[in-house]
């Protein structure tokens, strides 16, 4: 995430440079400059502004997207739009010579073509989003709020979970669909952290986040709780079933082997977990507090 995608797009940027250069060359070759008295500066400012904005959109698109079909289409569409607007802007300063006057009528063509390409890009983007939504399935429910994601694991944070739990409790009181919550804690995480450093620990957290999400059912939701803890919401599930699901997750996590830069395996023992069903008189704070408390007790006994 920290690397920008811009480096991937040197070719596209070069192509954009060529487009812009070609447009400017064409105008200056086939046209002649207007006298300053004929220039409408307010118009220049407006049209120039639009051209600059499309250029910013274009760069923002390249900055935030990896290579691929959707990116190429978006790039071509926006470039064409930009060229049209650029021509329109240059129009303020240049007048085409009489024999090339027909060029003026072509000004709007790239924009039309560009919008067509962008519509196509949107179509594919929609499909791409469907795929991404599927990948996010166990990481989010019903709504998206990127401000609530945890930077290290890419999962949502405790705040997001609290909202979901509050919602689930509401539903429980209204129509009696019970649910379970589980809290998982990485065994010996502080030793791991001391031994292998912050960067390794962060990537361990991220790996475990992935493993947990992979091994949950489609309806479940996993978030990062705090420190080395992950929290799982299991909607419409009784305690026996929830235990089985989390037991499976814990087994999968325990079989994970983290590696260092030299491909040697690092010591890691798996997770401790606690699972409980919600009560109708809980609010999200008391439920999470109770869960946390009972995991702490479990850890104290294990120690």
């Amino acid at each position: 995430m920290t690397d920008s995608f811009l480096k991937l797009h040197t070719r596209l940027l070069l192509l954009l440079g060529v487009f812009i250069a070609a447009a400017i060359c064409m105008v200056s070759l086939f046209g002649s400059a207007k006298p300053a008295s004929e220039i409408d500066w307010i118009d220049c400012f407006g049209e120039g502004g639009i051209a600059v904005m499309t250029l910013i959109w274009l760069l923002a698109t390249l900055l935030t997207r990896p290579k691929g079909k959707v990116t190429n289409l978006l790039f071509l569409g926006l470039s064409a739009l930009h060229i049209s607007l650029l021509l329109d802007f240059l129009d303020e300063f240049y007048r085409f010579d009489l024999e090339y006057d027909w060029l003026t009528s072509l000004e709007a063509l790239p924009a039309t073509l560009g919008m067509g390409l962008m519509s196509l890009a949107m179509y594919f983007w929609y499909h791409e989003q469907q795929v991404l939504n599927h990948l996010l399935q166990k990481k989010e429910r019903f709504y998206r709020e990127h401000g609530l994601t945890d930077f290290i694991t890419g999962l949502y944070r405790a705040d997001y979970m609290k909202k979901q739990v509050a919602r689930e409790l509401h539903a429980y009181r209204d129509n009696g669909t019970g649910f379970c919550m589980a809290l998982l804690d990485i065994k010996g995480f502080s030793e791991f952290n001391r031994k292998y450093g912050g960067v390794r620990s962060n990537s361990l957290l991220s790996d475990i986040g992935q493993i947990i999400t992979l091994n949950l059912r489609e309806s479940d939701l996993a978030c990062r709780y705090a420190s080395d803890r992950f929290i799982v919401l299991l909607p419409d599930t009784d305690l026996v079933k929830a235990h089985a699901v989390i037991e499976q997750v814990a087994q999968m996590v325990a079989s994970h082997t983290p590696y260092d830069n030299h491909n040697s395996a690092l010591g890691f023992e798996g997770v401790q977990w606690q699972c409980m069903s919600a009560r109708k008189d809980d609010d999200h704070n008391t439920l999470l507090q109770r869960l946390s408390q009972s995991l702490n007790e479990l850890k104290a006994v294990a120690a």
Partner: protein
Amino acid sequence: MRQVFESDSAILAMQPLLLPLIEMAEQRGVSSHKLLKGSRLFNEDLHQPNKRVSFKQVVQIFDNAQTLLSQDGVSFLVARHWLFSQPEAAFQALLNSRNLLDMSRVLQVRQAQIWPLMFFQSYHSANARHFVVNPAVAQVSAPCMEFMAEFLIAVIDQLCRWRFDMVTHLTVKLPYAQPKHVEQYQSHLQLQYHFSQPCFMVSVPTTYMYRPQTLALTSMRGFYLQQSKHAENNVGFLQYVCSLLALSPKQSATELSECLGVSVATLKRKLKAHNTSLQALKDQLQKQQAVIHISERGCSNEQVAQQLDYADVTNFRRNFKRWTGMTPSELRKLFN
């Protein structure tokens, strides 16, 4: 002779705390520029080994960190890192103290080298020791207080787990309401904590004050104390004023200014620059004494009023309500 330092004296060597904080912020998508905003410090400054910063600058950075990163629990993470990478001889003296009581004595004489930002005043009740903690230099903003408190209790929690194996018997009372990121407390801490309390206080049952520190080499304690003897021993402005007030709680601004060797006007100006006043400091001292008397020693209102030199109980009750927002009996109820 201890040198008194003020909020804007650039004398604190905070790199062992600030550099990890900056790195952790960056790992979480917050640039050093954002974290240091308003402190007039740049990341490069802190990479100079002899760079000293002022309390004011530190407060600004903690404030930023708490506003931007409290959800990530960086105060707790930095505390863990800081504890396990302490090179100071004074800190080694701490790690080789016989027990917690001994540790508190070492801390008393070497606090400037270990944790100059806050100081503690120790009280005891029938079966516990209580350490009331306050900022040592100036009163700080609410986010900064939260950051410093989280940092300190995380250090205490980790230290007691590592050296004494008795952390669950410690109780911490925090002077602010339960924060939104309470999951960080639940996940990082094994000690007991309570929010919305009148003072920031760490309590340890007396028996645990004497539990031997298993990993300590007591012969090394004296060695490290000697080693750290000539290091700077500065004391923060508020800590110094509070220590003078503790000796004679009723003294006037004139008497206090004479002790400090400044004019009354200068004293008032300095107190204001440190976000407080003489009356506020007197209130703070009386409040914490009253709270200890009531909640830890089980004294009656009459006894406390007498201890604090009040002519009548009504007057004391009124002041207590003003200090804490609750009556003495409401505080008693809170603990029962």
